[in-house]
């Protein structure tokens, strides 16, 4: 893979460019020859059966995993999991995990202020103030001093969203953000994500929530067997899928049994 520093792309290009990317663990190919672009302000929803490499793909975008071939370009910088500049790149990409991954030894507030203080060099006072703005955004201002273990799953995920927001990233990635939640708290998290979309945030969302995908997504990418089967407006994919596999998947999630 080419990693020359001079090889950057003009800013008017898409915020995220994915060119023929392949990921494998040893001999096992996770996904193969994936290509698509994300424009600033777009909400792109990735759907598909479990085990088709959707989550792994997100992890490649912020360099938690490396790629074997192809190229990922984020805001003009080539993503290379092994290079030093991956750290500065990650500041601009927020990531929300299925299992929240809050720091259990820190309060909700400290979870949110840690990176602004340590990475952006903000003072505690400024970081605290901004964190409280984020807590208002996710409607948890009354829970800021709680520890993660004292919060419900939905609350934990909203803190995780606040933690990512506090870095004011230009792309937010959600890796099945509601899959580990009790049904009654799923709505709270989706409502906040919808609000973020309305604020004009660029979002890349892996989810099984078809309602959300249809309602909030600008674009839907259907992945199966490690490749992109179909890419288009969500209503299109849900109502008139072109490919047979998309059809089968849509039928199975929209009309179970």
């Amino acid at each position, binding site marked *: 893979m080419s990693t020359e520093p001079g090889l950057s792309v003009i800013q008017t290009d898409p915020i995220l460019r994915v060119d023929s990317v392949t990921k494998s663990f040893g001999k096992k190919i996770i996904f193969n020859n994936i290509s698509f672009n994300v424009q600033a302000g777009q909400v792109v929803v990735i759907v598909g059966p479990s085990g088709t490499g959707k989550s792994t793909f997100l992890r490649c975008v912020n360099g938690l995993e490396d790629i074997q071939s192809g190229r990922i370009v984020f805001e003009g910088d080539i993503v290379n999991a092994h290079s030093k500049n991956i750290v500065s790149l990650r500041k601009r990409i*927020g990531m929300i995990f299925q299992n929240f991954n809050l720091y259990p030894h820190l309060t909700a507030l400290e979870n949110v202020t840690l990176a602004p203080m340590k990475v952006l060099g903000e003072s505690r006072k400024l970081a605290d103030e901004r964190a409280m703005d984020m807590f208002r955004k996710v409607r948890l201002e009354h829970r800021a001093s709680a520890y993660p273990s004292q919060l419900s799953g939905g609350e934990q995920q909203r803190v995780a969203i606040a933690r990512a927001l506090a870095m004011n990233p230009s792309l937010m990635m959600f890796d099945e953000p509601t899959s580990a939640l009790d049904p009654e708290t799923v709505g709270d998290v989706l409502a906040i994500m919808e609000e973020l979309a309305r604020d004009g945030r660029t979002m890349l969302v892996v989810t099984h929530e078809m309602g959300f995908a249809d309602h909030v997504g600008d674009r839907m990418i259907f992945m199966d067997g490690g490749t992109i089967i179909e890419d288009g407006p969500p209503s299109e994919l849900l109502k008139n899928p072109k490919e047979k596999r998309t059809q089968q998947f849509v039928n199975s999630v929209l009309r179970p049994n």
Partner: protein
Amino acid sequence: MILIDYSFLLIRGLGITLWISWVALLLAALIGALIGLGRTSKRWSIRFLTGVYAEFFRSIPVLVTLFFVYYGLTLLTGINLSTFVAATIALALEGSAMMSEVVRGGLQSIAKGQREAALSTGMKAWQVELFIVWPQAIRVMIPPAVGVYVSTLKASSLASVIGYVELTKTGLLIRESVRGHSGSLLILVVIATIYVIINFAISRLGAMLEERNNFVN
């Protein structure tokens, strides 16, 4: 009663036992942290070497290590080690092997997602270790580390064999001098009791430390 006359010596012996085991524990913690880190390294060679170190010193009886350090090192290098230095080194070698296991276990108990979440916010690798991994791992390490301290303290009694006068040796010397008196067996009971009280106190202290650092409610 004759033991009263020796109580000053017993207290002094206890002080020396606490001192040598404390010095050995500090060394063991420092070396053990490094070895433990090495055992979680990405590099195969580092994992192998530190693994050999840990297995080696955990398998050898402290007494053998002690003899090797006290007599062997002197023969090899010509440097005459004091009984204190030799005993401290031997205890630290064994302790560090046990501590490396504690450190490794502590570090490995932290879920992978913790590192990933922290990295995703743009923290550097050392910041992730300092602010996220170690503060959590240390809480996991406290109870077994207390266990290592207790066993180091008990093992320090072996230093009496090379003539270092700590608590056990003090007791043996007293026993020698009161031979024939009624105190000669009693003195061993007293020594044993002191060990029990001290180690129980250490365990309680460790439990309090654990309690205070508990963040899960």
